[in-house]
């Protein structure tokens, strides 16, 4: 018995350690956002602030942070919606239809994942390319780029999930006279809700956190995304830690909300899909 208790205690300690390792820096940052400016950097560091205030939050609210957050929210939602629609149709074709060029398309999708992950390194060619297309500094450019960055992952997750749905359902639907798209949207996708949730989460986080394209491809202040707005606190005149931490703290909340909404689906979505390869 005592061995079992010791095991149990060991497990709890392990869990606690991981959690502290995980959240330490973030809680420290959030605490910093509430400190007076001249107390954020202190030696020795003070775990307990002398006073808490929302002054940095007021500062960023006056400096255009909220409009950047709003722009990013729109970008992220558009990215999620378009990626899920285009992605599930493509995933369906890749999983269910044997057409010419399927393996080429599959390669384009798979190779797109690392390409999107390393896209920041090619930002200058991307900028010149967008200028040539006339898309630079338009309201479309960031949603389009974010869709392109996140679509490969969405297709990958959704294809895995559709692969786990029995084909007998398709046949039954075909006998009932349903077309392919109707079968997909009315029968198959409702069964893939978890995978849709997982894909939505990846797309949302990807679009919300993107920085490099956001800093280069738009000039108009109204189009600026949230990460650029946060980064502007690390300016030529130095890091302005108060507003920097305050805006970074606020930027976490939509992500947490997205996790609360879709998080339940995340594990089972991936279980049915992506992790099977």
């Amino acid at each position, binding site marked *: 018995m005592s061995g079992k208790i010791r095991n149990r205690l060991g497990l709890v300690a392990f869990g606690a350690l991981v959690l502290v390792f995980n959240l330490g820096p973030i809680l420290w940052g959030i605490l910093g956002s509430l400190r*007076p*400016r*001249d107390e*954020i*950097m*202190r*030696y020795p560091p003070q775990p307990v602030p002398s006073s808490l205030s929302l002054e940095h939050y007021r*500062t960023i609210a*006056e*400096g*255009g942070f909220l409009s950047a957050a709003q722009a990013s929210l*729109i970008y992220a*939602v*558009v990215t999620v*919606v*378009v990626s899920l629609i*285009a992605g599930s149709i493509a995933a369906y074709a890749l999983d269910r239809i044997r057409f010419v060029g399927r393996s080429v398309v599959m390669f384009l999708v798979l190779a797109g994942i690392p390409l999107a992950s390393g896209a920041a390194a090619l930002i*200058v060619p991307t*900028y*010149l390319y967008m*200028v*040539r*297309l*006339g*898309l*630079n500094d338009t*309201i*479309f450019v960031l*949603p*389009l780029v974010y*869709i392109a960055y996140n679509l490969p992952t969405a297709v990958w997750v959704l294809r895995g999930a559709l692969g786990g749905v029995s084909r007998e359902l398709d046949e039954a639907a075909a006998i009932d006279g349903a077309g392919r798209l109707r079968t997909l949207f009315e029968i198959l996708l409702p069964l893939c809700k978890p995978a849709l949730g997982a894909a939505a989460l990846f797309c949302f986080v990807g679009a919300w956190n993107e920085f490099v394209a956001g*800093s*280069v491809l738009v*000039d*108009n*202040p*109204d189009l*600026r995304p949230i990460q*650029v707005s946060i*980064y*502007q606190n*690390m*300016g*030529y*005149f*130095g*890091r*302005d*830690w108060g*507003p920097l931490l305050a805006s970074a703290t606020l930027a976490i909340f939509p992500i947490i909300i997205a996790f609360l909404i879709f998080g339940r689906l995340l594990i089972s979505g991936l279980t049915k899909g992506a992790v099977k390869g």
Partner: protein
Amino acid sequence: MNTNTTLRGLMAAVALCALTPLALHAQQTTIRMWTFLNPEGSTVREKVLGKVIADFEASHPGIRVRTEQQVWDQMTQKFMAASGAGNAPDVIWVNSDLLGTVMQTGALADISAAFTPEDLADLDNPLVQAATEGGKVYGVGQSYMIFGLIARKRFLDEAGVDPATIRTWDDLDAAAQKLTKGSGAAVERWGLCQDLGMTKIDPGILLAHLLTGDEGDPAFGETGRANWANERGVAGIRRVAALIDSGASPREGLNWTNDEMYDQFSAGRCAIITGASVRIGSLQQSTGDDDIAFIPYPSDDPEGPSRQAISNWTTSVWTGSKNPEAAAQLVAFMTRPEADEIWVTEGGTLPARASTAEKLADFLNQPSNRHMLSAANYIRSSGWVPPFGADISGYRDDMDRAIQQVVMNGADPMQALKEAEQAYNTRHGY
């Protein structure tokens, strides 16, 4: 062209759904300006820029200014790319470190017509000269700065160090030792902190040594070719290494960025740092202490300080601008005497005009502003700008690599400098 239109239409159709187009209002001449400041922002300099732009629009009813804030460390490169693609803004702030490179691409227009000869004489300094060629003026300066020593007066007073007596390198060594509190792992405060990391660093003691007394043997040749492996360089590296070895300067500094060093200064960990004069305003805020002194780099000669790099943001007009006159007017307006004055008094920047410095002598002499006066004087007496059109990009990283070789690996200073010089020259094709 036709395919482009089709493409554009197609792409719009794919993603447009939730977005409403922006209302366009463009009956007037609109001047686009790229800067790293947000005129709607909350810092003192941003407020000044907002004010100057509002004044400009009030006095030029036909012209609107649209400021497109950029990320400061990407802005100049982005401008060059945009200029090549025909999409640059009318007015641009060019980081003076890249001024030569930008001018060589022919992206900057002559704006001399917007200035009177008196104006130009008043604005004159080595950086404006660097932007001037054969009577053509390709830009004037904003936000001047020079690298030097930044010190908390409170700590100096506690240790009985008078900043005015730091005239020679030996004085600096002695002061740094005196200002250091505690030692080893228990050090509470270092006398002199240096940022000697690999990326995002300011030039410091080594550059001061290399530039001082280099007549006839310049540290950077006409093209920007490096010439560092000499006695001055060795003395500089030895000085840096000795400060670290004695414990007066932190070993951790070998991986600090400049921001890291400023944070340590804010935390009271450093009595003096090797920093940029332009940062003092925000350091006053982050330390909650207005009494911060700016001290020129000492030299071997008690009569005068070391030479040191200066830089600014050169404001200019893009050659491709459709409204070059209006754009040049804006550039001139931002440096006219009235604007220069509020840049100094409200924005805490150094005066761009000699007349402003004279007029505001009393203001600059106030205790909390005295650092501005010292920096402005240092720029005038010992400021160094690279030779016209020279490309010296990346030299700071190479110099710090040499320092790290010596301090961490015990390399021979001359050998380390040779390697750094060679790496730099090879990369530039010099």
